[in-house]
């Protein structure tokens, strides 16, 4: 019983018209059907946050959505953060500057979580940042570099950073 549907969604500004199995998760669709492997799977039950993407501008766990639910939606994944593929988003640059990643596996999920968070909280304190990423598990960094990066990125984005925010 392989049931499929045609769906159409925009990802990082590009339209995709594809056929997906109805039981396929959004994460698997992004990774394997569309080759956008930047979104990672760490637990497949919604706790680790590595699979977080933006769905119509809001952070969601792509492992907890079916691909068919993204029909008509506009998604942003980590691949869509840098402009022209090369010019790092201030958050990405801040992560680089503050050693905000080690193995990098949890990083895309944290970046997408922070994109939303900083948009709504342009001037957060440390405690708020920690609370915002409390749903993203990292086994490598102890979170310190990530927090420093987020605070720095907030300052950069707030200081009239001309980056387009997705």
């Amino acid at each position, binding site marked *: 019983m392989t049931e499929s549907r045609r769906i159409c969604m925009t990802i990082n500004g590009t339209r995709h018209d594809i056929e997906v199995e109805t039981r396929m998760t959004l994460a698997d669709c992004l990774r394997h059907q569309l080759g956008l492997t930047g979104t990672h799977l760490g637990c497949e039950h919604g706790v680790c946050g590595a699979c977080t993407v933006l769905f119509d501008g809001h952070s969601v766990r792509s492992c907890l959505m079916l691909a068919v*639910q993204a029909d008509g939606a506009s998604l942003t994944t980590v691949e869509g953060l840098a402009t022209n593929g090369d010019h790092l988003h201030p958050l990405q640059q801040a992560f680089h500057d503050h050693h905000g990643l080690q193995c990098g596996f949890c990083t895309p999920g944290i970046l997408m979580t922070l994109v939303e968070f900083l948009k709504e909280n342009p001037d957060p304190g440390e405690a708020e940042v920690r609370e915002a990423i409390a749903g993203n598990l990292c086994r490598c960094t102890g979170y310190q570099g990530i927090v420093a990066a987020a605070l720095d990125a907030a300052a950069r984005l707030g200081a009239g950073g001309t980056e387009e925010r997705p």
Partner: protein
Amino acid sequence: MKPPPFSYHDPRSLEEALKLLASLDDAKLLAGGQSFMPMLSMRFIMPEHVIDLNRISGLSEIRENGGGIEIGAMVRQSELEFSDLIRSRCPLMKEALRLVGHRPTRNRGTIGGSLCHLDPAAELPVVAAALDASIRVRSERGERRVAMSEFPAFYMTPAIEADEIVTGVEFEPWPVGHGYAFVEFARRHGDFAIVAVAVLMALAGDGTVSRVSITLGGVGSGPLRCSDAESVVSGSRGGAQIFQKAAETCRHIEAMEDVHASSAYRRHLAETLTGRALESAFGRAVNGSSAGKGAPS
């Protein structure tokens, strides 16, 4: 951990959804998916049909209706979190929502889904019980309301029929300036509560407690209204001694035991947190009444 095969339906109207639910055997409803999808991926549930409610319009409104507040079942937890209406009329819910999972899960999770899932450790059922809310239920056979107190039938099982869909929850908000507190103990921020306490409190003109609602979560299959504790506080002038006495009634509640906590620890937490919640709610009630009527809390 991949979902098993199923037939997927995404009705565009409530009527279509009800028709599907009535006609299909072995169908499950998909709302926010934050509890549903893990169970599906772990194959704890293997329904033949999945009815996705996310394309149905008309279930996603928050509105005032007469004296009451109506929240559509598909309203996302994050919408409630940022709603001005909820903030001003039901600050208890807003305080609780900050503790519900994490922002990405609140962006999809719905109030209806949380109420129907009835996880003993979830926050929203406790809030609904504290508010004496009623749950709106529809089927092809018609509409009915179920009081939140009657809603949990068994462990993680609501008192609704197989062909019924919860369409919303409604409650009468407490008067402006009322005291409130949602306090819980969880191992980490955003985790399910081991024990949670929701307190609502109103003060009479003379400063005594005219009305109080004390509800525990995490201790049993449904939220527990603590009428014994409420009796202690009701009519009193508050204060540490009263609140401690009220909290001590928690020593006699039946509390469940599992891999996370013993019943003794749950009772202990219930007592500790009830005392703290009462203090907090009372403080807010005093501020609320001294701020005068009409001022949002």
